[in-house]
């Protein structure tokens, strides 16, 4: 018990561990409260949009594109958007060409929009599919109206004007029976389990938030074990063991002390999710965080014992934290990259369990 209390006291007086702890708490609060709130919009594909046409049709299209949840649209001058594109802030640049409205009215649908994208870019094809959904309503109205106007006029019947025709289509569009949607179900092909949560754009971003939290847990565990490395280097540990200290019992107590030191942050990290998770899910998240914290503490405790000096410990550990972090983040996109080799790393596993809980 005295070893446990001693380690806890030492941790509370360790400037490095405390600074790291304070920074981590600040980052966690901003990550969870700030980034999580904008996860939906920032998971969307960022594109630039310029409307070079002044017709009502192009304005309608612009409004439809801005409404799309799948896209995060930047607007502005051509120079500004081109600089965003070249600087990597947007994936592609869509320009509604001059004459868009007139062409749509005439039923000409070829090359209405210019897409500036990087060479061999596949994402702009997906964005093109999404934007086509916004364009089709207008295109279909004009195509059908042109067909209607081409019909022979019936005696005594006045043909509808374009605005009257559009008014009728608008009226019809209010009918829910025209809103076609797929009957989508999400099933985990590996386990056969049906997903309890709807798949939303924000899930991509939340995986990254989970990765950041896992990295922070590891970072604090790493900083908390720093002082122990100092004890090895200064020879204090050797002296302690010469007076009959049990290696395993001491290790267990020290790991418990480090875990106790980290516990308030772990609780804070879980409780902050009450805004977007149910009580049961938060409890599950707390359990996951505690398990990951124990894993991290154990890992760095082992690294301390192997390194036995501060420099080597910090050098190896920082590579472990950032290395696992990068591999974990790659695992988020692994499915799109066609690989499964990084899913086995600790942070990737944490992300998977986090999403499984309901993150």
């Amino acid at each position, binding site marked *: 018990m005295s070893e446990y209390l001693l380690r806890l006291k030492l941790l509370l007086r360790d400037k490095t561990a405390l600074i790291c702890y304070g920074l981590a708490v600040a980052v966690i609060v901003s990550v969870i409260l700030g980034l999580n709130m904008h996860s939906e919009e920032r998971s969307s594909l960022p594109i630039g949009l310029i409307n070079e046409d002044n017709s009502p049709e192009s304005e309608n299209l612009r409004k439809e594109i801005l409404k799309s949840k799948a896209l995060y649209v930047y607007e502005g001058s051509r120079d500004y958007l081109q600089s965003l594109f070249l600087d990597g802030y947007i994936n592609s640049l869509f320009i509604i060409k001059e004459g868009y409205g007139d062409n749509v009215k005439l039923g000409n649908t070829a090359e209405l929009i210019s897409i500036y994208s990087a*060479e061999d870019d596949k994402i702009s094809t997906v964005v093109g599919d999404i934007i086509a959904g916004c364009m089709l309503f207008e295109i279909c109205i004009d195509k059908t109206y042109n067909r209607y106007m081409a019909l022979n006029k019936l005696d005594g019947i006045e043909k509808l004007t374009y605005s009257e025709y559009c008014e009728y289509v608008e009226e019809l569009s209010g009918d829910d029976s025209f809103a076609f949607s*797929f009957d989508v179900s999400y099933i985990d*092909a590996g386990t056969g389990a049906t997903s309890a949560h709807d798949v939303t754009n924000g899930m991509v971003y939340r995986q990254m938030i989970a990765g950041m939290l896992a990295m922070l847990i590891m970072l604090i565990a790493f900083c908390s074990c720093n002082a122990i490395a100092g004890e090895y280097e200064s020879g204090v540990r050797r002296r302690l063991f010469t007076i009959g200290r049990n290696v395993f019992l001491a290790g267990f107590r020290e790991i418990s002390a480090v875990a106790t030191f980290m516990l308030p942050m772990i609780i804070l990290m879980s409780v902050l999710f009450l805004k977007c998770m149910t009580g049961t899910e938060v409890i599950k998240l707390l359990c996951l965080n505690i398990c990951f914290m124990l894993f991290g503490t154990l890992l760095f405790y082992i690294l301390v014992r192997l390194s036995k000096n501060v420099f080597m410990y910090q050098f190896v550990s920082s590579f472990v934290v950032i290395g696992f972090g990068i591999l974990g983040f790659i695992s988020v996109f692994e499915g799109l990259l066609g690989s499964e080799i990084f899913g086995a790393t600790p942070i990737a596993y944490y992300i998977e369990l986090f999403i499984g809980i309901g993150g």
Partner: protein
Amino acid sequence: MFRKDLKLIVSEKRFLFFSLILLAVTMIAVIFGSQNRETPKVSLGVCDNDNSQYSVLLVDYFKQNEVFTSYIEIVEESEDELERLFFEGKLDVYLVIPKDFAENLIKINNMPMKAVINSADPTKAVVYKTLLESYGQYISAVELNCQALYDIMDREGYPDSLVDEENFAVSYDLIFTALGKDEFYEIKPSERIKGISLVNYYIYSALMFLVLYCGTFAGLGLLRDKLSKVRLRMESIGNSKVKMTLSKSFAYTLICGGMVLISLIIVNLFSRFSFPAVSVISILLSIFISSLFFCVLGNVFKSEGGYIVFTNMLILLLTIVGGGIIPVMYLPEAIARVARFTPNYWFIKMLL
């Protein structure tokens, strides 16, 4: 002094560790690179229970469309077979077109089309969901406008045969307009930037990580000289601080940069990743600037522990803010604005 610095670096333990880590990173890049010859396509299963003229046309169109097949591979099978393939992990998503689907569509009797998405990978599931939503919009637009024309013609008293004939023709026209959506666009690939896959992005990010660590070694070497009073002795024999800092920076650039370049050659030879020749200069220049920066930082610190903790934190922060973990385009706007001021951002931009 420069030769002495070179000898010192090679004889240090951390140099061995750096070599081992570099070797591990190189091996990961090679293994990963050789596994992924091509960006994987989406495997889409389709079961056409309708088997009508429209549904057959639709499936055939998608199977033959060049743009569509460049990122989606269609497997047409029975529902049971699709389910089996799905649970074997061979399909990412499958659709079941119900019986009389086209007929009901024309009669505006919306029958839901079953879509099953593999949720094991949330990132892919989000992409499929977005695509299905946009395809749903296509169907709604076609359906709505066909019905509008039908209603108006019917109301104005056109003969039933003409209304039906026109309805069939317009349905056909609108469906093919929707399917021919690729024609809506004029694609202008930028000659100034190449498409960067996420793999390459993270490889560049890992490379920047190594560049920053090369710098920390240089700074640590200088700090050790300072703490062990070696620098004081060097100064007493007429070596200036600037000269010593530059010598250290050049020595680390030569050795660490040389090792990084050897790794890049290995990656270039044994994986699909390729680094342009101009990146050699960029990498060496970056290592030199990084070494110089950390050497200056090393001059400020009074203990190794403080220096190591600070530099680790700094590298972590620069990596996160500079888009090393979440690509800049997906960072929150406020952080993305700050990203421009980080070396990570400029390093990746320089390699593109």
